[in-house]
């Protein structure tokens, strides 16, 4: 080889290589890194050391370093000295890279690119997406009349460089349909089309866009792809796949888009809304984003294994949705392509590893941490109750002196009178006083008579108090024993040790409470350290909040809260699991088997279907009659004694108007508690007070912890912004800090994809080395910086895109352009895409006039073929179809069972809702055809479009056909189309002259047709409407 000469060298080295190719400048990020990444990094990338490979090509320093004896992978300008070039061009197959066994091969153009790159000086660049976007100036274009806004300058520059022209603008009706579908998910009505087409004002289109952006439908439309990214669903996934309730989070998303929450806040609140100072209910609900992952409730799982999976899912989803990074690839080893080490994965993991959660989720309903999340309507009702309570409270407050005087007089009267006792009576479900008790022997007790238990006797109160694990309740009783109290006090459970049910027993003086669905892996057990002394009466109370967690159990001894030790906290199935029974007697002094029966005295058992307040519990535990308290000088009475006197007085002895106010107040309190029990809950993020330790997991396995790691960010990305705490909140702040090179780019790219079908970066989910080089890098950066500049204004960004000349082009394509650019990456035409699954259905319902528009609420169950759940789900689950209007809600409200997704949605390529999906896909299958032709959803919609043709379309057939065609497609039929429609109608009129067939055909769906219409006519129009609903154009955005 001769000495290096820029041009001569190429000729000599490459032989017949075209000289011009070498002169075309090679750009590392655009041309070289994709090749190195895809073909070399698996071995020579960030994880090379793990494979024992010394040569690395993922960093400039390593690639140009001396590997020993002067060997270097890349020597700028020197093909012969560059081992990279020598190996990829080696003649001997054994030496040639990539090796055969890798199943990778370089194409001749790729080899030439790498050679040219070396020749041109082997310039290196940091990976493009890790460099913060800089706002590029608008480029020069020839056709300066075309651009409408910044977007168009970039698009046109590229088109001109490629020698292409933009397409003419789309027709007005087409454009309005396109933008209505894109911004609201529904087509325009004929009236809206008329208004727009006939609006001569220069800002007619802008006005239409503003109208659409202001519609509540906008939020529903924008939420849909975000639900896919957030793997939102109505069930837990995995084997049992029971129901969960995350719709309050879903509604938060809709609302966030509708009120145009800036994207940085949208991000911040979803990642760490709970950690914001003074976090509001809404901000906490927002964090449901990272609780949407699947959750396993299978009996035999090792809970720790799934606790890890949940955190991994959070990291993967957050990285994909906000950063466009495949961080999850570094779970088991260093990332093969991107500069992320396995340790860095676990550093990010650590931000999400601090949730007080269990690896095994609740079989039914939401799993903690969760939050009652009243809807606006429920909040209003609660406020109203509180307002009414305040009226009574005010009355009592305002007449305080009078009440005190009256109470003092009453106190004097009862000092010497008959014994007066007070206990709460509101919410009482069972009381056993043992006074006059005949079921067990009695003896004088703490209050009146007490039950005597000798280790054999027990009191069977019958099959009552069937509380389940989600119910709240309070158990209380007086006990006394000569030796350390031992045995069952109160229980409802199978009469054997560790039987199913709940119970309160004393374990050699320690108070032990359990809720057991299945010993030993499905139970709550707590026990006090404090011992109940022998030889005297003591009062025990247990409250349970229905949280299904040990933290929901509180124990009180003699009216004081007694700390408990959690012995078991794995409860996840109700007592009535899978619809089973929970029938046992409520026992006093027994339960858990004959050996556990109580020895001693039990008195005044009280069970409440609510949680008593600590003061109420203390008041009960005072035990002594109020007469004694009344005798004490006022200043010697304790707070509880004062309260107890007051409560009794208000309940029994005050003037009638105050007694009534008190009674109302108590009733309203119960009513409010009852209302609060109906609040939907939502799973949210929360932080443990003491942070979890995070360890790197060797090979990603839950049971192979390696070195301990602290929360942190990948070194290749910017550090936390100044002042941000190093926790999940700081991570969220970092995501939306302007220094973050990815967040804005990834967001604008995903929005772009929704309009054009493909992102500017096609790999919406991967902005790493294996991701695709942007089709318009400057446009991407311009949009990203514009997004940030406008304060992350989401609606403004949508408006920018849909008002661009690029977006407004006609989608017609020529065969030549199709060959040149099949995917429309150059944007020489407008988008033409099949509608997403949700829109296919929603549009049909809308055209039919069936769509029931209502924002938010619990998910609904529209038509679905019978038996789909029965065939493969657990036996106790069946699909119970909703009734109108819920039968006709927009598809984002459709109940999504993860293991058996709604077939219509699946057929039309909806995301799977099992894991984060940000890329849109479209297929074209016969199942879609069958679905549109034969699903009751579309047949009923066709029936109603047909009915509208007859009732609204005028008298003559052509007018009706034109009406129906336009109703669905947004345009009148052309002559040839009208003729086909006419022929089709005539055929069906003939076909349905068989009236029995017509009637049968019209039986599809729940909603009755207009009875005044003739079956033959209606069926014929319905069939033509079905034809229109099946058109390619109908299910396509043009």
């Amino acid at each position, binding site marked *: 080889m001769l000495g290096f000469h820029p041009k001569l060298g190429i000729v000599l080295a490459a032989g017949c290589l075209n000289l011009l190719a070498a002169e075309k400048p090679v750009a590392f990020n655009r041309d070289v890194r994709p090749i190195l*990444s895809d073909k070399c990094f698996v071995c020579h990338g960030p994880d090379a050391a793990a494979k024992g490979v010394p040569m690395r090509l993922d960093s400039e320093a390593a690639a140009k370093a001396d590997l020993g004896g002067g060997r270097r992978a890349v020597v700028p300008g020197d093909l012969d000295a560059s081992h990279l070039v020598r190996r990829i061009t080696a003649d001997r197959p054994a030496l040639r890279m990539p090796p055969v066994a890798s199943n990778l091969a370089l194409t001749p153009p790729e080899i030439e690119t790498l050679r040219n790159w070396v020749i041109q000086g082997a310039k290196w660049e940091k990976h493009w997406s890790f460099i913060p976007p800089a706002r590029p100036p608008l480029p020069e274009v020839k056709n300066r009349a075309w651009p409408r806004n910044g977007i168009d300058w970039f698009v046109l520059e590229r088109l001109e460089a490629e020698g292409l022209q933009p397409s003419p603008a789309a027709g007005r009706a087409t454009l309005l349909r396109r933008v209505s579908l894109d911004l609201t998910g529904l087509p325009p009505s004929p009236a809206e089309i008329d208004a727009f087409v006939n609006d001569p004002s220069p800002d007619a289109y802008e006005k239409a866009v503003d109208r659409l952006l202001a519609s509540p439908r906008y939020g529903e439309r924008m939420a849909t792809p975000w639900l896919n990214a957030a793997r939102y669903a109505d069930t837990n996934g*995995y*084997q049992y*796949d029971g129901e969960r309730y995350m719709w309050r989070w879903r509604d938060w998303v809709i609302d966030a888009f509708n009120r145009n929450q800036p994207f940085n806040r949208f991000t911040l609140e979803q990642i760490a809304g709970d950690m914001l100072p003074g976090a509001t209910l809404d901000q906490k609900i927002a964090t449901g984003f990272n609780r949407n992952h699947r959750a*396993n409730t*299978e*009996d*035999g799982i*090792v809970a720790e294994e799934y606790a890890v999976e949940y955190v991994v899912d959070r990291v993967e989803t957050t990285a*994909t949705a906000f950063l466009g990074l*495949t961080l999850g*690839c570094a779970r088991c080893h260093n990332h093969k*392509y991107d500069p992320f080490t396995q340790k860095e994965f676990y550093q990010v993991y650590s931000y999400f590893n601090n949730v007080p959660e269990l690896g095994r989720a609740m079989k039914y309903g939401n799993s903690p941490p969760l939050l009652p999340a009243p809807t606006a309507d429920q909040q209003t009702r609660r406020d109203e109750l509180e307002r009414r309570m305040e009226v009574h409270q005010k009355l009592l407050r305002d007449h305080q002196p009078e009440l005190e005087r009256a109470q003092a007089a009453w106190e004097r009267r009862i000092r010497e009178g008959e014994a007066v006792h007070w206990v709460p009576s509101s919410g009482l479900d069972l009381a056993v006083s043992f006074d006059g008790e005949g079921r067990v022997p009695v003896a004088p007790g703490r209050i009146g008579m007490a039950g005597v238990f000798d280790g054999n006797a027990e009191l069977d109160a019958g099959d009552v108090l069937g509380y389940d694990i989600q119910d709240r309740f309070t158990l209380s009783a007086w006990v006394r024993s000569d030796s350390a109290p031992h045995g069952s006090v109160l229980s409802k459970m199978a009469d054997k040790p560790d039987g199913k049910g709940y119970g309160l027993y004393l374990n050699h003086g320690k108070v032990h409470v359990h809720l057991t669905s299945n010993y030993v*892996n499905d139970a709550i057990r707590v026990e006090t350290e404090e011992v109940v002394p022998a030889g005297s009466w003591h009062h025990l109370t247990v409250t349970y909040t229905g949280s299904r967690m040990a933290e929901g159990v509180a124990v009180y001894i003699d009216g004081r809260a007694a700390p408990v030790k959690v012995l078991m906290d794995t409860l996840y199935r109700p007592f009535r699991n899978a619809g089973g029974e929970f029938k046992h007697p409520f026992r006093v002094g027994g339960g858990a088997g004959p050996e556990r029966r109580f020895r001693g005295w039990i008195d005044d058992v009280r069970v409440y279907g609510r949680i008593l307040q600590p003061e109420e519990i203390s008041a009960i535990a005072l035990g002594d009659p109020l007469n004694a308290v009344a005798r004490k000088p006022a200043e010697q009475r304790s707070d509880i004694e004062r309260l107890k006197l007051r409560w009794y007085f208000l309940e029994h002895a005050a003037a009638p108007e105050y007694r009534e106010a008190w009674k109302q107040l108590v009733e309203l309190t119960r009513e409010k508690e009852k209302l609060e029990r109906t609040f939907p809950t939502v799973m949210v993020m929360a932080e443990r007070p003491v942070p979890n330790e995070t360890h790197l997991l060797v090979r990603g396995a839950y*049971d192979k912890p390696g070195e301990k790691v602290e929360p942190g960010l990948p070194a290749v990305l910017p550090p936390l912004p100044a002042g941000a705490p190093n926790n999940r909140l700081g991570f969220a702040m970092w995501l939306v800090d302007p220094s973050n090179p990815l967040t804005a780019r990834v967001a604008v790219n995903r929005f772009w994809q929704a309009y054009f079908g493909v992102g500017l970066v096609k790999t919406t989910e*991967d902005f*790493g*080395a294996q991701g695709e080089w942007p089709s318009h890098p400057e446009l991407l950066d311009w949009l990203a910086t514009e997004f940030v500049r406008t304060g992350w204004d989401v609606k403004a960004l949508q408006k920018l895109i849909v008002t661009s000349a690029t977006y407004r082009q006609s*989608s*017609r*394509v*020529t065969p030549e352009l199709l*060959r040149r650019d*099949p995917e429309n990456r150059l944007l020489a035409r407008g988008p033409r895409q*099949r509608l997403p699954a949700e829109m296919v259905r929603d549009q049909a319902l809308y055209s039919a006039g069936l769509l029931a528009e209502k924002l938010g609420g619990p998910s609904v169950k529209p038509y679905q073929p019978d*038996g789909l759940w029965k065939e*493969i789900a*657990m*036996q106790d689950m069946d699909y119970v179809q909703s009734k109108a209007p819920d039968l006709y809600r927009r598809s984002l409200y459709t109940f999504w069972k993860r*293991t*058996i997704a709604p077939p219509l949605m699946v057929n039309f390529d909806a995301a*799977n809702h*099992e*894991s984060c999906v940000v890329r849109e*896909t479209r297929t*074209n299958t016969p*199942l*879609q*055809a*069958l*679905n549109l*032709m*034969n*699903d*009751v959803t579309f047949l009923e919609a066709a029936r109603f479009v047909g009915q509208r043709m007859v009732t609204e379309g005028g008298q003559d057939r052509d007018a009706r056909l034109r009406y129906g065609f336009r109703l669905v497609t947004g345009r009148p039929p*052309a002559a040839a*189309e009208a003729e*086909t*429609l006419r022929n*089709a109608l005539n*055929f069906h009129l003939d*076909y349905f002259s068989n009236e029995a*067939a017509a009637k049968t*055909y*019209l039986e599809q769906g729940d909603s009755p047709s207009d009875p005044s219409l003739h079956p033959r006519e209606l*069926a014929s129009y319905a069939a033509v409407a079905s*034809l229109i609903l*099946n*058109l390619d154009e109908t299910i*396509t955005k043009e």
Partner: protein
Amino acid sequence: MDPLQERRLLLTRRHFFSRASTGLGAAALSSLLPAGLRAGAGASGLPHFAPKAKRVIYLFQHGGPSQLDLFDYKPNLHAQRGKDLPDSVRMGQRLTGMTAFQTNFPTAPSIFRFRQHGKSGMCLSELLPHLSGVADEIALIRSMHTEAINHDPAVTFLQTGFQLAGRPSMGSWLAYGLGSENQDLPSFVVMVSQGVGGTQALADRSWGSGFLPSKYQGVKFRSGADPVLYLSNPPGYDETARRRFLDDLARLNELKFKESQDPEISTRIAQYEMAFRMQSSVPELADLSKEPESTFEMYGPDARKPGTFAANCILARRLAERGVRFVQLFHRGWDAHGRLPKEIRGQCEQTDQPCAALINDLKQRGMLDDTIVVWGGEFGRTVYSQGELTEENYGRDHHPRCFAMWLAGGGIRGGVTHGETDDFSYNIVKDPVDVHDLHATILHCLGVDHTRLTYKYQGRHFRLTDVHGKVVKPLLA
């Protein structure tokens, strides 16, 4: 898809529609479709080498059939009966949450007798009298093992090569890689036995396409009026009307194509035609009334009951005859935690005869040579009893460390018994076969190099076998 080819096709078809009378379009259209446009076309470069088999019938036994009571004879175990499983065998390996707290682990030998069968002398349980009759056709693997210990992840692993949701199932990979041989039927069909009590749930993801386009997902065939969802025309609307409907639809779509030139439109026209063909081909396929009496005799007493495993086995053969690439049956009810002897008898009564019949039937028709039949579940069961061990009863928990499967047909060597476990059927002592190896081997028989059937997603070139898998040569003919 080559747009020029598309264009030529459309010109041809427009010509055709202008002349053809209603009703003839369907049959003719399929032959007009160029290979690249067919929904059934596979990925380029496949198969990688000459295949031994063209299709697979996979009889998935969901719940974890007990290898100890069916395939893995342990004569020395009777001496250990009731004794605790030695720690030296268990080696502290993890147990499921259902028996992890059990205080003792009584060894429970099978109460069923084993005998040698065929020229090969394969040792099989008395529970499998019919399979025993075809012992020389099957290759028995006694050394399967898996990573997962619970149903959902274990089934997902068997089906997709990964424990967590999101990856394509084996059938989807093959539909993507090899396409279909029949233009009127999907290339991947799934059937779930109905009427089996006390079963665990399945998930659509078991036949899902994961990150592959959804057209590669398994199509579930159901027993009843609509074997495929939405297949039947609505009542009151017959085939004549539908044909006319499709002709009008095609005409309107053609007009649209003329204007917009989007090739998706011509694909859609073709898909509607395939839908129409499915409307006749699927009911024809699902209609067993023309099967001779001998078929029902061969497949056993359940064969006439739609939705049973036996009836589905007949359907599987009919699908195979029609060139469907991957047929998968799911039969549940093997999850015998508490009453294994009773339950397994019932399971075998439902499945043994149809399995053997399927092998014989395929053989008689000369199709066993190019059809692979696979039988097996997601894991095995423990040698120790879950719950009390009595004379007549025991239960067995999930056991991932060894289990048994069998294969038969195209490319598989009959009569082989592969792999060995220890005296307790607890650990594998010879020739372990993991799930990836099984996948690699099945793919190999189909002419597919498992390391080269890839799909790029999230920057990675994904494979069914992830980064693992070895073809198990001793199983090959």
